[in-house]
């Protein structure tokens, strides 16, 4: 298990395309928003939590097709499936590696990018809290989508189409938590809902991912 995680992390470092790409994309989205909605700081303050969440979500989406497709292409997935590792654990570790290489950098970068969008001071803490709680769900759901589309040539677009609707609940409660935090309202309800979604998918989805992976490997 540890071996798989370390290997995935080393590969993400050496091969690139992991962190850098997601962060750069996030940065560009955040920079483009003032160009398209205008530089009024009152308006930016209002939409900042939503824009930051949407940017983080799209940045996360970029690297999803690397989770399993690379291992499928070079035959590693077949060999892992015949190894002693249970596939449920394999997909969980893959999701964890994706979160560490994509989710964590997004969480770290989001407050910095928040400055660009004039996020109010009390919003920073809640933005980070919402991303810490929400991005694991994005990785786990994304791994499920990757398992569904593994083996499909150029499945990246199909993967996005399948995964984006599944991201809706996470996005709603995540950006609601960040928005309420920024406006100084009570945050308990969206926070509990977001945590519930994350823990729920972490507990259940690996089984579904392993099942569809087994079918796709036939």
């Amino acid at each position: 298990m540890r071996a798989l995680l370390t290997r995935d992390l080393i590969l993400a470092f050496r091969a690139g395309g992991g962190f850098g790409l997601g962060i750069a994309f996030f940065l560009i989205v955040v920079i483009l928003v003032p160009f398209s909605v205008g530089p009024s700081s009152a308006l930016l303050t209002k939409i900042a939590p939503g824009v930051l969440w949407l940017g983080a979500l799209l940045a996360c989406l970029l690297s999803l097709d690397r989770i399993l497709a690379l291992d499928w292409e070079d035959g590693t997935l077949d060999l892992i499936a015949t190894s002693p590792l249970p596939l449920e654990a394999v997909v969980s570790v893959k999701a964890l590696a994706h979160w560490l290489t994509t989710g964590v950098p997004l969480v770290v970068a989001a407050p910095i990018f928040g400055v660009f969008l004039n996020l109010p001071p009390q919003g920073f803490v809640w933005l980070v809290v919402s991303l810490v709680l929400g991005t694991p769900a994005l990785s786990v759901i994304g791994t499920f989508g990757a398992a569904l589309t593994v083996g499909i040539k150029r499945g990246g677009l199909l993967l996005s189409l399948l995964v984006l609707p599944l991201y809706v609940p996470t996005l709603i409660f995540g950006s609601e938590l960040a928005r309420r935090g920024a406006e100084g309202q009570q945050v308990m309800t969206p926070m509990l809902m977001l945590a519930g979604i994350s823990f729920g998918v972490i507990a259940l989805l690996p089984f579904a991912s392993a099942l569809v992976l087994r079918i796709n490997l036939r």
Partner: protein
Amino acid sequence: MKLHAQDVSVARGGVSVLEGLSFELCAGEALVIRGPNGIGKTTLLRTLAGLQPALKGRVDAPEDSIAYAAHSDGLKTMLSVAENLRFWADVFGTSDISSALESFELTDLQHRLAGSLSAGQKRRLGLARLMVTARPIWILDEPTVSLDKAAVALFATAVKRHLAHGGSAILATHIELGLEANVLELSPYKTVAGSAVLSGQDEAFL
């Protein structure tokens, strides 16, 4: 350690390709599978390895006894030779990679990135992986592709040593390895056209 296949039928893409296969493989034995292209050698081996279910019949093998080597070697080009092997050793819970490196003459290459190896060297690394799995039953799909004569000899020696230590191997190959092996010719088991069952592939439009 015994692998037993009983009246097995296998299917590729929902179409039955082989029917009524039965054989037994005991410790120390090798079985060479022969047949023309497209007869279903890979499909049969994947079924034996447990990657896909048999259409009919059953395959009995002790749990966690099979090491499978496919057409592609499952190498990470950005990892070194030793790192690739160590990963598989960790996955299979073994620790010794040096004997595998020596058997396939990879010791001098162990710090090179796998991506910088030639096709034959990659294949040797893929085969060395079998040795670090420490599993008794090897299932090998065209193991000698892109190997030169010397490397084929290395591979034959490794298989012989594996058999001598009570392991067994199933190989799909056309090259004479000098093994004392039973040969299973697949042509007689080919599914007669017409009896093929076409199952739904409605998702193909995507």
